[in-house]
């Protein structure tokens, strides 16, 4: 095994021999596979409110999670103390899931060549705090300057550096250093008795220079303030089924909720997803090709390797409307006899990995956004959303607008109050009749929750039109 610069060897004096021993202990009571996941996470967060730096905090979290797989069974234990006897104890606890003598030998650990999706020369985590503060203060200033009706601006900057080491009894050996930065701004606008809110933000696996050169604090502040001001004039949203046009970027949360979760392999293996057994069937219109791609450089949803040490991939989920594949992890791929797509992720060393999305988006089509809007007689045009949710068993999903307008006779008209759109995953995308040429990914704000575990993700779509979707407004 090649020598590595890994923090875990240097800081915690964990040797390759130790690693082999831990894996052996984990498999000592039987089981087909074991892995150890080491994680060292440092994080900084600062926030400005009422034009002063109200809070700053920093933290370190480190630990190791041990997993043993025996058939469909998973045993798991973790420790935040990386002393050898604590890791051995965790390995023994995880081993309890299996029964019987060891049958699988531990393979030689072999480091595979991986992607290099985020070679950040100076990670934000190392930058001095004064420069981060300066960015956040600039946002505050720009938000307040946007309009006298802006009465509150809150801006924050959070960055982290997550270093991982994954070893598996099948010979997996992977390390990764994962930076992440996220800028957020929210504004409150007030006019008489009327109040409204707006929010913006973004980032990814980038350094501080991203915010100096590409998306500045002023950009985010202006966006948040603009949204709040527009919402002051929002009128009641319509109620019922109608044509819906989604703008590019974050509205791609449609895909995440409508089909993304439903295509995670664990649900399909168990037959609990509305998409179970539908490989090869039509689940979207011919204009829709949807992928989950963990290999986009610098994106919030990208990773070089997943949290089981498998390299990430660009996986085609839906091709011209036909369902092609699921997102898998090691357990799913083994039990389903399908290739591992490198989507095994976990929130932290305290959590069991499972299939999760990375960056989920629809490929660009040929229509222009202008033509798409012109084609609508009466409908909704939604350009920004809060969050969403899905029941993968009956397929029902929702997502809630944060900036939307009426379309009347092919023209965008009045801004609308926030409302929830609801649909049915297996057929919602069959109603996509126009797909724009303007694919955008979101700004780097997405966090996905599943089974109590949060992971960072990305979404994206071009402007698209759905012929029908239920809009949850109040005006009939």
């Amino acid at each position, binding site marked *: 095994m090649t020598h590595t610069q890994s923090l875990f060897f240097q800081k915690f004096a964990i040797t390759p021999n130790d690693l082999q021993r831990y894996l052996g202990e984990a498999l000592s009571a039987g089981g087909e596979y074991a892995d150890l996941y080491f994680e060292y996470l440092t994080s900084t*967060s*600062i926030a400005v409110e009422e034009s002063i*730096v*109200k*809070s*700053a*905090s*920093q*933290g*370190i979290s480190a*630990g190791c999670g041990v997993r043993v797989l025996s058939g469909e*069974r998973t*045993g*798991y*234990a*973790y*420790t*935040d*103390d990386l002393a050898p006897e*604590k890791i051995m*104890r965790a390995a023994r*606890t995880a081993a*309890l*899931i299996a029964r019987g003598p060891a049958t699988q030998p531990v393979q030689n650990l072999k480091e595979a060549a991986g992607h290099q999706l985020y070679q950040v020369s100076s990670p934000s985590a190392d930058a001095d*705090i004064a420069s981060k503060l300066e960015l956040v203060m600039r946002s505050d200033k720009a938000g307040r300057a946007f309009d006298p009706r802006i009465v*509150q601006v*809150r801006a924050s900057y959070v960055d982290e550096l997550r270093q991982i080491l994954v070893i598996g009894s099948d010979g997996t050996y992977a390390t990764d250093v994962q930076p992440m930065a996220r800028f957020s701004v929210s504004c*409150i606008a*007030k006019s008489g008795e009327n*109040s*409204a*809110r707006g929010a913006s933000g973004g980032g990814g696996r980038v350094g501080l220079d991203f915010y100096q050169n590409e998306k500045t604090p002023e950009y985010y502040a202006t966006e948040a303030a603009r949204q709040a001001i527009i919402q002051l004039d929002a009128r009641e*949203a319509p*109620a*019922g*089924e109608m044509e819906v046009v989604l703008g590019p970027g974050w509205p791609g949360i449609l895909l995440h909720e409508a089909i993304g979760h439903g295509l995670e392999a664990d649900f399909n293996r*168990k037959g*609990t997803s509305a998409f179970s057994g539908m490989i090869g069937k039509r689940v979207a219109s011919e204009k829709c090709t949807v992928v989950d791609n963990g290999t986009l450089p610098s994106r919030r949803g990208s990773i070089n390797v997943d949290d089981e040490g498998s390299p990430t991939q660009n996986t085609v989920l839906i091709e011209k409307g036909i369902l092609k594949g699921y997102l898998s992890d090691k357990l799913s791929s083994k039990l389903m006899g399908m290739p591992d797509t490198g989507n095994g992720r976990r929130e932290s060393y305290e959590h*069991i990995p499972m299939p999760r999305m990375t960056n989920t988006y629809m490929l660009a089509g040929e229509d222009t956004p202008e033509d798409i809007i012109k084609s609508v007689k009466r409908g909704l045009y939604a350009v920004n959303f*809060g*969050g*969403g*949710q899905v*029941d993968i*068993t*009956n*397929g*029902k999903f*929702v997502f*809630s607008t944060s900036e939307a307008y009426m379309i009347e006779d092919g023209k965008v008209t009045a801004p609308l*109050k*926030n*409302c*929830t759109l*609801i649909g049915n995953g297996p057929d919602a995308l069959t109603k996509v009749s126009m797909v724009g040429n303007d694919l955008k990914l979101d700004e780097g704000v997405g966090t996905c929750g599943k089974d109590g575990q949060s992971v960072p993700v990305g979404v994206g779509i071009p402007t698209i039109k759905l012929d029908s979707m*239920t*809009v*949850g*407004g*109040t005006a009939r």
Partner: protein
Amino acid sequence: MATKTEVVPTETDLRNLATDVVDRAMKAGATAAESVVREGNEFSTVVRMGSVETLKESGSRAMGLRVFMGQRSASTYSSDFTEDGIQRLVKGAVELAHVTSEDSFSGLPDPSELGSLSNDLQLYFDDVYSLPPEERIDYARRAERAALDVDPRLKNSDGGSFDAGTGHKVLANSLGFVGEYRRSSCSLSAVPIAQVEGGSMQRDYWFSVARTLAKLDSPEAVGREAARRTLRRIGARKISSTEAPIVLDPMVSVSILGNIFEGATGDAVYRQSSFMAGKIGQKIAGSNITVIDDGTIVGGFGSEPFDGEGVPTRRTVVIENGELKSYLLNTYTARKLGMKTTGNASRGLAGSPGIGAGNFFLQPGTRTPQQIIGDVKRGFYVTEFMGFGVNLVTGDFSRGASGLWIENGELAYPVEEVTVAGNLKDMLNNISEIGNDLVFRGSSACPTLRIDGMTIAGA
């Protein structure tokens, strides 16, 4: 096959650690400091289709430090309890405090506000770990089995689960406050899935949660209720858009309470991001509405002897007969608003304290849920809300919903893929019925409610 998790640091260890960290911070130049040390154990198992699917058991601990340098403050957290780790924790907080701004409202509570409830709140029972591991697994298996046995249409399952956990927390500050308590919880759930021939699937669940094993419902009771809830979803249809009264199942009405809580926090109020801001003394709801926060209820899921800053918890009437009486505050927000803390500070490991509820509930009425439904000629009995479509700044409310259509006082057929929309300002004034069925299955609770005047959007 007894399993033991990590050796638990003794009480003395955690207390000493917390006070030691505060001392070190003061010696390093802080003018005030507050530390929290937490340790906990967890066990969880999921049994699916009769076989163990996951088995997880572990313990962890971590600490957080908040320091003040005059009117500047910062915080650090770590899971590294070595000498080196503690030194870095302290040094990091002190250095970080230099870069924040002076905030005249920041600081520890007034010394006179500090304290801890002295009675035993009965938050900790070590019987949550008294079942041998095989029996814990069997609880989960029995809950799932009981659900699937109810009806042949229940062919699949997301499993039965059993969880148990204990926690130990110490809070110490440089004003001499040291407080600690332990708590425990255990829970059981079943998630059956129904499928009809050639039709779609439906899934629902039921659960029981308690601080002691003795108060947990039987696996069979949990399984049967989970089956009942799942079966009533079969054949769900989408309905046309309409206006009609809605009746909310307690599992759903409790989310409205959650919205009220968020609107009543001192943070939302001083930030002008709550539709309830500035309305103390005004009528914001119907006269039948009384909402209370009480952190002192013995055994309550939301009870604790002191809040996240070392201030004793108490009972606070938030809304009384429709009138807004009090916000829920911590020290900072109380100072911002010229008021006193209500003992609702909530402290994670990092960052400044936020605001948390104790046991938060709507006072029950006298009608039964059956009577309330029986009075509805045509309406929607909501058993599930989906999504996050609540805007507390404006009060706008729009969420996905499933449930059962009410026709002439009877539950007629299941409904799905619709939304329910309105505005909280109106909703609070249009709660025309409150049930007598207040049951705590968590730290917040609400009886069955009937709300008029909302819009149901569907086909």
